[in-house]
């Protein structure tokens, strides 16, 4: 009996050690960065390079409004040296995680708590706050990450935060940022040039995430499949939308990766439109592993969808 119990104990210890060995821990000197979304993960990786180990709390194709605050996420945040989030009222699940992770360094107001909304000019700020308007965002539309200019501003915020938390490697962060910014600006010119012939073209979305993207690339959003943000589409609303699309000659639908594809397909079939799977975050669709690839995909998909229908249709 004694031998057996010692044996069992030995197995337990060995198993725990094996499990511990497989847990990834940052190497000595590396910052442990936790982000809410893969877009910030990608930026942190670009700017931090060998000095950071980054983890995202959600995957790219998920709906950022509906992430479950689980103990594993709290655990990930417990050891974080830097926490990057969208701010505003987009990720309400973060409040619970911050309370539960017991990591003082990343609490609101601390230097290691990075609000990516710094410097962003918000669109669609509501005049009236009421649930009768649906799932309203009270500060304005929080999907600002879909504008490449805002992504550059977010990268600056992350760079400044990295320099503050890890001053020893500040020059490296600056260097990485400059290199990335050059690449990003060059690509931005290219994207704007590609989209110039399609300025004024009309599109339809599923959820209200398009204002920043559409304004940057000169597109006009004529409606959304959801009658109000977060409200399930009704039959009468989809009929109205289809009629509007036909009337205004809108042939492109940008559908979020987490949306009800059956409803979107129904609308697109009746309106004769092309559906583009529209990820809101890096990694939401295969081949969008970083910010540049992400916008490359968005722009190329739109160019392909618009095809030869260049010019604004009125």
């Amino acid at each position, binding site marked *: 009996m004694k031998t057996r119990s010692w044996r069992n104990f030995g197995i337990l210890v060995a198993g725990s050690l094996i499990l511990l060995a497989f847990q990834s821990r940052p190497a000595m000197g590396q910052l442990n960065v936790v982000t809410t979304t893969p877009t910030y993960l990608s930026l942190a990786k670009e700017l931090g390079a060998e000095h950071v180990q980054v983890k995202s709390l959600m995957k790219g194709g998920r709906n950022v409004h509906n992430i479950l605050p689980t103990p594993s996420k709290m655990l990930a945040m417990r050891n974080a040296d830097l926490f990057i989030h969208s*701010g505003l009222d987009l990720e309400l699940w973060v409040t619970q995680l911050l309370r539960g992770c017991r990591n003082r360094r990343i609490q609101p107001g601390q230097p290691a708590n990075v*609000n990516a909304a*710094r410097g962003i000019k918000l669109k669609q700020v509501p005049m009236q*706050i009421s*649930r009768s308007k*649906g799932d309203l965002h009270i500060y304005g539309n929080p999907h600002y990450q879909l504008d490449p200019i805002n992504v550059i501003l977010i990268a*600056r915020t992350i760079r400044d935060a990295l320099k503050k938390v890890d001053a020893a490697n500040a020059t490296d962060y600056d260097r990485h940022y400059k290199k990335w910014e050059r690449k990003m600006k060059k690509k*931005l010119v290219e994207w704007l040039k590609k989209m110039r012939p399609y300025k004024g073209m009309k599109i339809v979305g599923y959820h209200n995430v398009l204002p920043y993207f559409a304004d940057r690339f000169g597109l006009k959003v004529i409606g959304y499949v959801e*009658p109000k943000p977060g409200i399930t589409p009704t039959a009468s609303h989809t009929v109205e939308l289809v009629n509007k699309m036909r009337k205004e000659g809108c042939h492109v639908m940008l559908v979020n990766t987490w949306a009800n594809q059956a409803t979107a397909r129904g609308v697109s079939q009746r309106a004769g439109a092309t559906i583009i799977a529209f990820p809101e975050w890096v990694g939401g669709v295969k081949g969008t592993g970083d910010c540049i690839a992400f916008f490359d995909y968005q722009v190329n998909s739109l160019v392909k969808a618009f095809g030869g229908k260049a010019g604004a249709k009125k």
Partner: protein
Amino acid sequence: MSCRLLSIFFVNALIVSFCCDQPLLAQKPRFIPPPSKQRTSKASNAGKMDWINAETVKSGDSLVHHSGSRPKEAALRQKASVSELSKTRPANRRHKDRLTQLAQRIEQMETRHRREIRLLSQQIERLQGQLQTRRVQPTRATIVRERSMKSMSGERTPGILHVSKQAGKKRLKQDPARKQKKVPRSSDDQSTEKSIEELLQEGESRRAVKPPELGAGLGAKLSAFNPNISLIGDFFGVTSTAPDGNGRSRIPLGFFNDGDVDTFSFREIELMGTAAIDPYSDALVKLAFNNGGVEIEEAYALFHDYQFRDQLPKWMQNVQTKVGQFRMAFGPMNLVDEHDLPTVDQPLANQRFLGEEGLIRAGVSFSKILPISEQWTSELILQITNGEPLGGEPGSAPFAGIEHPLGLLHYELSRDYQPASDWKSRHEAGCEPRLQDGRRTLTLGSTFAATGNRVETSGENLYSLVEGLNATWQWFDPRPDSYRQYLLQGETFFSQLDQANDGVRFDAGGYFLAQMRFKRQWFVGTRFDITEFPDRDGFQTAVTPYMTYFMTEFNRLRLQYQFLHQEIDGAGRDNAHTVWFQLVFAYGAHPPEPYYLGARF
């Protein structure tokens, strides 16, 4: 043995072929790959996309793609084979339909493919155009490689004696003629870069401002979604010659503090919260705090729209649904909170037939507005609720249903009369407004309510039916500087209660109220009550004159006198004189105003 096996196999093949409607030896589709010379670079194929320009034909159920070189002949061949097949096979309607469907599908695919090919061609042309305008600059590695190849082949490059890696690189650096020329950017690109820099500078200036933070700041802002909260205090002082409520008098006990007929007290403090739940529904919660504790006066969700509205039959689409605990639609007085009544107390008939605090139950209510004509509208309300009040209180007759729900049907007609067309000219001439000059509303309603009462000893079900009629007439002075208003209102109640001894008890009651607003802040009126008791023999009559002074719309004072005469079998005759003083104040979000104010203060 082998012959037998072969024959079995052959028979099986025949059977399978018959069932699947396939020829025994089906024609295999031939795939003809595109010609190899047409698979060169895209540039040379520009405009000659024959190998994608597929003609699709059908053979039975299979699709065959032929190269573009002999499309028509192949198509004709295949079509001929199809027509032959269809002729030789026995007439099969289903097979022909399938063929037709396939043909249609193929046509659609052809159209789509042609469009795609056209788009691709245009894209290629565009790219070719861009390629020609761009000058391709050799990289340094290319130059070094070319030089080394030339030197190996014996070619002499002027200015260079020998080629070595370092020397080559050094000369490339020193030779100004070999400097790589930068690709000149177009003016469009330059202006785009400039605007990008300007936007980034704007963003940089905004980064100095702290953005909204999670935590306390977010919590404070999210409080914008909190309900509209208002608090209403109903304070009174009363003195009366009426005896206490110890079986002899039915003066409402709520006005007396433990039997003391001279008292000041709060009837209730009402906390009310209203908010939109979502685009389809609103919520209302009223909590009443009084000497007995706190109780839920009303709490319900009101659905004014439905997500599944389109799936409902048309007649149901405009039905409004209320779910929760609410004041039932038995006449206009029962719908009004006690602090909003035109008088301090409820009419005596309402107290006897609907309960001292009114008829409040938990259940479901459906209402629908039915337009009748341009002038008249009507509303139909159906309510199904518990027979008993919440909290297990027995309730009072006639609505003391045990185990039986209470059903109520209310129908109301209303009309708005607009002022006479010439009233303005007469007003300018200084004439007093006539009756027909004012804005008038007339409301006529009827209510039918039924519930049951089960006798525990005998298990017998005794039913209670109560019918009511109501009429309200209001007149508003049309002159904008005048607040003169008249209100005439009356209700009657008729009850039929099954008795345990197989009898039916009939009782009736009612009131009539006349009120005048002679100044903006002043109301005077009188109420006449006469009512029987639904659960005993006897009657009460009362005359209740009163005066109300609205200091502001949130603060009102009232003085009321009541002369009550009652005769109750077994209790004799009683007269009582009661004087009330009442103060009602409201603060918080703007609470709803009493109906008799006419939304005008």
